[in-house]
């Protein structure tokens, strides 16, 4: 039986990793900070997948982002989905060649479905994650693109129905209202996913503690829970979350986290050869 997943999302803007609240960004640290203070390569043994998004608000430097995708991919042994600003097949390929396993599209679904079809025919539908940013407007959930700035004239349900007709592999559903609040996922949003919806759904926006992961994973319609909260899951919090979720009997993949240090460099002939990263 396929496992459910806990996903860590990294938001990237012009060389820095960001904390986001209702899509307003605050700089936290660069790649060195992530490696050292966040002990990223150790942390990655407590999650199932990484989503890495270039949410640069201006002057997007794609080469620099590709470098970051590569560095992150060298630090962990799990699938990576990368995206932000993808508008052609070539860039999608570049992300894959730099260590991404899947690519994440968002605004492209609003402006150019043909390009998505071209990407799918080259990389396969399993490679495409459709990110959908949603905000409650009056009593309706509306879809926004362009980093949450452009209101699309569609409700969530209409958008999801449209998405099912494009060969994408899964959906990353993010609540702009709950983003970065740490108050928990937006339950109403999950209720708004049509019952017969066929694609796997990742829920994002609002997770602040592991109980929120539980609330998400308990939902039948939810295949994966994500958090982009760099502060709430500092220290051993993600590690503890995973232990707690497994103890509660959630259907997550299991592996021995502790052996990672033992087998690191196990073939090194002398102690002078240290794992280079």
């Amino acid at each position: 039986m396929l496992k459910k997943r806990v996903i860590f999302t990294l938001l990237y803007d012009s060389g820095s990793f960001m904390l986001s609240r209702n899509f307003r960004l605050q700089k936290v640290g660069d790649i060195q900070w992530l490696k050292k203070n966040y002990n990223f390569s150790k942390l990655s043994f407590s999650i199932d997948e990484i989503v890495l998004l270039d949410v640069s608000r201006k002057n997007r430097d794609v080469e620099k982002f590709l470098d970051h995708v590569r560095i992150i991919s060298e630090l962990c042994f799990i699938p990576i989905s990368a995206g932000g600003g993808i508008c052609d097949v070539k860039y999608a390929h570049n992300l894959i060649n730099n260590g991404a396993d899947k690519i994440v599209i968002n605004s492209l679904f609003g402006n150019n479905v043909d390009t998505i079809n071209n990407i799918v025919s080259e990389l396969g539908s399993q490679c495409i994650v459709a990110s959908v940013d949603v905000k409650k407007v009056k009593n309706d959930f509306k879809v926004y693109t362009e980093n949450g700035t452009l209101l699309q004239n569609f409700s969530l349900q209409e958008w999801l129905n449209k998405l099912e007709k494009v060969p994408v592999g899964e959906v990353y559903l993010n609540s702009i209202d709950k983003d970065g609040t740490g108050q928990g996922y937006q339950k109403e949003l999950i209720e708004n996913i049509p019952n017969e919806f066929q694609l796997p759904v990742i829920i994002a926006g609002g997770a602040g503690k592991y109980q929120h992961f539980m609330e998400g994973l308990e939902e039948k319609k939810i295949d994966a829970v994500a958090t982009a909260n760099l502060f709430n899951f500092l220290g051993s919090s993600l590690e503890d979350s995973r232990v707690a979720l497994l103890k509660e009997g959630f259907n997550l993949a299991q592996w021995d986290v502790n052996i990672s240090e033992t087998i690191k460099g196990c073939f090194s002939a002398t102690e002078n050869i240290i794992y280079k990263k």
Partner: protein
Amino acid sequence: MKVPLVTLVDYGAGNLLSVVSAIEYLGAKVEIISDPQRIAESSVLVLPGVGSFKKGMEAIKGSSIDKSILYAVKSNNAKILGICMGMQLMGSYGTEDGGAKGLGLISNRVERFNKAEINGNKLPHVGFNTVNFSERKGLFKGLPKSSDFYFTHSYRMLVNDIDGRYATCQYGKDFLAAFQVNNIYGTQFHPEKSQTNGLILLRNFLRD
């Protein structure tokens, strides 16, 4: 312990970085090689692969890498690990895109999961799933009898005729998740994307 030197066969198949990172994490050395002569002379080979079986075989044949692999494995007793489509390419035949012959290192055929057998499950089969080992030796040493690995594929081999160690995964019906027949190893899953389970398995391959 001797430091293994791995030849990662480069025939233009997608992302090789993760495999390199995993091998280096273990402290082994790895070179990405496309030169058929050097592939033929290698003693430890890893054959990666994503994309279509037919295109993969065309690329391998077009650069004569097929002959080098067969020479290294059959005449020089090199060990080889095929990953994902790399494992499939070691089979006798793949039906994808109108069909093509494989390297024939094992006799199994590669066919698409059919709707009846997957029993309402979605295709492609993507994500961590549980793998059951026939025995906990060789490639599968040091892992619990049921262990989780990361898959992403729509085509599979069945377990028929594997004369060696094997592992299965259930997706509706059991399919071949991994095998070890003498010096020939294959995993349908991605060990380089399967956390410590995958790292242990790669260590076993290199140490075996």
